[in-house]
């Protein structure tokens, strides 16, 4: 049976000189479901998709000690992103195509079009972004007043009109807009950080 994700954490803890354990946790939390979903879109059954994600993450964990030797000194996060994307796409293309049970339809659901090989990178990007949004939501929620968060959630996620959200939260419409754009801006900033588009240092 494949090793549990904790094994990877221990690999990180032991082999990689305790480096960036937090970045690794965050990395696994975001990429694992992304790889699983990508594999599902390739027609793999759930448990096979889990296995594949496990293998890919394990192979990345094993490569972590290489990072130090990398003269380019890419940032850990950027480097991990590159390695895991290659590993996932390789693992999927090397596989014999399973019968695409549900796979194609899942992809159509996600992407609005049928699956072809060249869509993989796009799909990976899309799934990564969605997973990143979920993860970020969890990370930044505590930074905001509950009513601010609620105003954002009601309009941006639940799709309520600003007027309705204003009524429910007791804020003015203007305040609802301020709340939702401020939180969205924070999301955007975090996505840039996670994707390595911006320097990693974000103080809050």
């Amino acid at each position, binding site marked *: *049976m494949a090793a*549990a*994700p*904790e*094994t990877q954490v*221990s690999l990180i*803890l*032991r082999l990689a*000189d*305790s*480096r*960036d*354990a*937090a*970045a690794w946790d965050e990395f696994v939390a975001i990429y*694992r*479901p992304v790889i*699983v979903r990508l594999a599902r879109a390739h027609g793999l*059954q*759930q*448990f096979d998709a*889990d296995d594949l994600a496990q293998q890919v993450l394990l192979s990345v964990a094993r490569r972590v000690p290489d990072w130090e030797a990398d003269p380019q000194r890419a*940032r*850990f996060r950027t480097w991990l992103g590159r390695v895991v994307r290659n590993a996932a796409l390789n693992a999927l293309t090397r596989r014999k195509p399973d*019968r695409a*049970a*549900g796979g194609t*339809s899942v992809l159509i659901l996600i992407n609005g079009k049928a699956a072809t090989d060249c869509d993989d990178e796009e799909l990976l990007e899309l799934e990564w*972004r*969605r*997973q990143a*949004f*979920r*993860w970020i*939501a*969890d990370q930044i*929620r505590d*930074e905001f007043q509950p009513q601010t968060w609620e105003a954002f*959630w009601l309009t*941006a*996620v*639940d*799709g309520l009109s600003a007027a309705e959200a204003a009524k429910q939260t007791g804020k*003015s*419409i*203007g*305040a609802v*807009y*301020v709340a939702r*754009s401020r939180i*969205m*801006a924070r*999301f*955007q900033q975090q996505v840039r950080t996670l994707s390595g588009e911006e*320097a*990693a*240092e*974000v*103080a*809050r």
Partner: protein
Amino acid sequence: MTTQTNRCSTAVVSQFLDGSLSRPEEAAFESHLDQCERCRETLDQAVASERDWNELRLSLTTDGLTPDSFPDGEPQSASRSNDLNFFRRLLSPSDDPRMLGRIATYEIAGLLGHGGMGVVFKGFDPAVNRSVAIKMMLPQFANSGAARQRFFREAQAAGAVVHEHVIAILCVSTWQETPYLVMPYVRGISLQKRIDDQGALQLRELLRIGMQVASGLAAAHAQGLIHRDVKPANILMEEGVERVVLTDFGLARAVDDIRLTRTDTLVGTPQYMSPEQARDEPLDFRSDLFSLGSVLYEASTGRPAFQAVTSYGVLRKINDLQPTPIQELNPDIPDWFALIIERLMAKNPVDRFASASQVAKLLRQCLSHVEQPRLTPLPASLVQADHSPPFRFTRRFAMYTALLTISLGLAAAMMPGGTDDGGQAASQATTKNKNKAAKKYASAQEAFQIGAAFYNSRNFAAAREPFEAVIQLAKDDDALKLKAYEALLQPYREIPEFEPFQTAAEYVIANHKHDASRSLTRRAYLSFAYNRGQMKNLVARYEKQLKKDPNDWMAVYLLSEIYSRGAGLPPSVEHSKRAIELLEHLAKLDAERKKAEGKPETELSPAEAAKISREKGRLAMQYMRAKDYSKAAALYEEIAPLDTTTHAWNLKEAATARLKLGDKENALRLALAAEKAPAEARNDQLTHFFERHMGDMFLALGKPKKAIPHYEIAIRKTTIDGYVKGTQASLQEAIEKAKSE
């Protein structure tokens, strides 16, 4: 550039997003938004593209939460008409006009619900004249051999459990190559609906439901079957009789089926998962006991034990946190019942009860006690408070354990999540006993290995003590000490005190040789401090250190970040200046450090340079708002070439400032340079602002011909009618002036 927040202004939106509006300006902007739909649209577009808004909504709504497989009450044809039409295609036509269709010999009366892989219909069995529930696999899954096998295996497994509190499987078959199974139709509501409608349940009912579910689980476990998805929605309360039935063995797996002992990641809601399930580890029947505990918690308090915005957030809470003490939410719950739930919900399976049948028996005794308190005493095990496992979320019990811990001189590190009193007491005890604890280990290495083992099993609380021992024992093994401090960040995050985390974070930042690790730790430290409301104290602490020693590297390293990110501080000229001062000082200290270590002196790293230029941009903006145009112009021009993404924008700002000073010559020079500078890679709405400002500038400088192309691009780049109109008016003006030239 004056800011008028009470009417539409292209500049205000971008200033708001940059965080450079003052409080009153922001309030004015907010009330302007109240009135102005146009500016709301602008704001939405400026902050994120429509695609990103959509992505955000999709990712946060389709959060792996599938609809319940057993929704409540009668089939709802109206509100679910879309679903109904979709699933109707799975049926054959019926002869009975009142029916939706037919599966084999069953007449289908309506849709009960659908989940990730299947759909549940309400049906009627004419042969025996009774209602049934028919669960059918979705056709797209039916093509897969493995999925079919699984469906049948689940049906067989569930069918093998014959018990009054487990739903019966009447028949398993296929219809038009799609597998389905038939169960009795239970008239009534689910426990979920009951809780949603009426909130917390009475103690008697809690005991009855808990007992019945536990005995149903015992029967399943006796067959080697783990349910894996015990949740309020899967517990049906029959109408008119005091009986609950456990349904939906959709995720159930036989214990001995090795291939299938792993979870389907996030099928259904994770709210009731056990910690081991959340970690995707192999499970045994005790996982169901945890879920039963979560169900009873919710039924006792009216709210789920673990709530978060995302599935991932829920999983993390299940794994890391203790829920709010039950009696804080419902003081009517007696201590002994809270203790039973806590024991069911112990993070470590060995701390839970030994079996579901033991739980059923215990709850039965409790029920007798509640019904006839004089005749039946409480079970003895609940009266004596001599439990060995560390219960952590009964208030009184936590205090009791804390006292006990101190008096026995035990390592109190085992209970970090207690109440404030308990936590403080515990930490005092820890300090006193640190040396004693350290003696438990033969060497720092051994303590580290034990700590790592706890850490790896994600039992961070238990990892604390051995890692603290490492620090005591490591003496001059600095590398090991560093590793221990790094590992301690996690357990320290979960305790009420702020200082231990601070100590560990400072040690790591001061001693780690990798830039990346230092900056990650700094980020974690500052956001931890922010969340704990410690930002002001941090500023005071490091400013004080700088007074003592202006070259204190760590103080500079931390303060520069705090000031430049404005964590909790209002934007102002002073803060921006201080940030720049500190960033430059840091760069100097780093260079000296490298020199001292014999490394070649390098230029500023691109990240550092970008940070300084960004901060200077912020300062320039402050000068602009303070109408100190000459300083603003000089600074904007200075920083423009440093950052390609804002190059053109900063030159344009410099030109604006020059124009304000009446220095047309330099304004024109800068505007022409801005035209040639690399285009800013921002979204269309901001490009619109940029081009429009450029047009305005050339028009003001008496160069209408130069203004025309900018206005034209600006018009193309916005979709907002008001902006199009305004820019068209300016364009017209430019064209006319160009003609008369």
